[in-house]
């Protein structure tokens, strides 16, 4: 997926008008200065941060025209409150207490909507929240007795808000995944989960019809049947190791152990049921069982073939690679990595579950509890499985 497309995918389509309005305001407001006096630096920052938040909130109903009146009224009310605070910041007085009160209330409201599944957190929502937190931090710094508390509150709020969004985003992805066993995947933004927080998972949007054609359904079924038949030779991890698959870094047991075959990663073949780039095993107590395979594209950014249309969806992971000590993490909702790390998105991949994964044969993940139960019932003793 191209860089621009990935960037745009991170912003929900219904938020695009608000994003453009916010961008215009963000470019223009820093140049706004009162003519009668030199402004304080903090006031100027507050004008910009609160002004952008106001513009985005006021413009949100432009895209949310199918949303409830209550939600739209909430956006407008919030936007007007921020606009008023930005105006007071422009005047250089009376904005700090209001900002310190309105920002936490807005963030709590947003998180309630996210946690209750009312909205998939997207890049615009997270970016605006970050700007609001910064505005509240600047406000608190200027209130007597709140300077130190303000600093601590700012850092804590950033961390806690990010953590809740991160957890909410993963929960939404898992929930969407669990319900994707059904054939229909809507192409509209309202029903398609695209992980717009882009924190660890980059989904490729499906732009075709929501339901698969007969040919696509048959192609998906054929892919699953062929893969299942070809994978019968990998009963345990011993068979996989013999065939050239290797353990992942530091992980020899678990409900979804991904073993990679480096030779297959660079063999120039795509979606070859005989040579999947990864095998997924459930491994514990000296036993293992094959759950499925992962087809991985050779080059990052290259879209994988989707014979099954909306049924065979690809995704990628944006990861952090820390230099010292060498390690892997995932990109946060703020798009960042730990210090001295590099970030990057690895090639697209698609799971095909040869075991009866309740989430569906092409789901992105497997429920750990189901995997353990499946291992207990179908697992076989393996010499190399960790006991």
């Amino acid at each position, binding site marked *: 997926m191209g860089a621009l497309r990935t960037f745009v995918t991170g912003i929900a389509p219904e938020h695009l008008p608000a994003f453009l309005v916010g961008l215009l305001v963000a470019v223009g407001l820093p140049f706004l200065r009162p003519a009668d006096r030199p402004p304080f630096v903090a006031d100027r920052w507050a004008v910009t941060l609160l002004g952008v938040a106001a513009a985005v909130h006021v413009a949100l109903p432009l895209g949310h025209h199918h949303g409830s009146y209550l939600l739209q009224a909430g956006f407008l009310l919030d936007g007007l409150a921020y606009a008023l605070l930005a105006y007071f910041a422009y005047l250089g007085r009376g904005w700090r207490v209001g900002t310190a009160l309105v920002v936490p209330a807005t963030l709590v409201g947003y998180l309630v909507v996210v946690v209750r599944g009312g909205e998939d957190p997207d890049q615009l929502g997270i970016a605006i929240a970050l700007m609001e937190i910064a505005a509240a931090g*600047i406000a608190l710094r200027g209130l007597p007795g709140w300077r130190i508390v303000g600093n601590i509150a700012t850092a804590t709020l950033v961390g806690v808000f990010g953590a809740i969004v991160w957890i909410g985003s993963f929960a939404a992805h898992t929930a969407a995944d669990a319900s994707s066993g059904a054939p229909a995947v809507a192409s509209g933004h309202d029903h398609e989960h695209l992980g717009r927080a882009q924190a660890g998972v980059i989904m490729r949007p499906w732009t075709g019809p929501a339901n698969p054609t007969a040919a696509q359904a048959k192609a998906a079924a054929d892919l699953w049947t062929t893969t299942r038949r070809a994978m019968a030779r990998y009963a345990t991890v011993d068979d996989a190791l013999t065939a050239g698959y290797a353990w992942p870094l530091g992980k020899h047991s678990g409900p979804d152990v991904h073993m990679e075959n480096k030779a297959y990663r660079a063999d120039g073949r795509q979606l070859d049921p005989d040579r999947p780039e990864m095998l997924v095993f459930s491994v514990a107590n000296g036993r293992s069982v094959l759950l499925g395979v992962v087809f991985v594209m050779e080059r990052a950014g290259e879209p994988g073939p989707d014979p099954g249309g909306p049924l065979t969806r690809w995704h990628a992971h944006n990861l952090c690679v820390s230099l010292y000590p060498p390690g892997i993490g995932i990109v946060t909702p703020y798009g*960042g990595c730990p*210090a001295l790390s590099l970030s*990057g998105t690895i090639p697209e991949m698609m799971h095909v579950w040869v075991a009866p994964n309740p989430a569906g044969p092409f789901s992105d993940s497997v429920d750990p509890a189901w995997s353990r139960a499946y291992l207990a019932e179908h697992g076989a003793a393996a010499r190399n499985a960790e006991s």
Partner: protein
Amino acid sequence: MRRDVVLVLVCVQIGAGVLAMLGELLFMGGNPLYVWEPAVRVLVAAILAGLLHKRIGALVGMMALQVVSLIGVTLSAVAGALPGVVFTPTLTGLLTGVGLPVAILVLCLREWNARHGAPPVSGHAAEVRR
């Protein structure tokens, strides 16, 4: 007043940095080796931010820290040219990886200019003193 804004922006960086550290810690099975380096970065940033108004060295250190952050983003973008990985620009990534360090860098630079009696990079002279 400029120092106040820098302090708040550094606090935002610290919060985001701690979150990233926790993410990697979870991913690497809770191995404490992955704590020390981000923790040192957070500590250094906090100390430098606290000393901004007293020591010119803190100002220089803060600017150096931001330059290191920008180099990291640049290296990530360069690494995206490799076949196995691609650079993914996101709105929040650009905001925290580029916007935030650049903003802190510019504010520190203006503070530096103000302390050395040079005219500010831009803006009103009186504003610098505030």
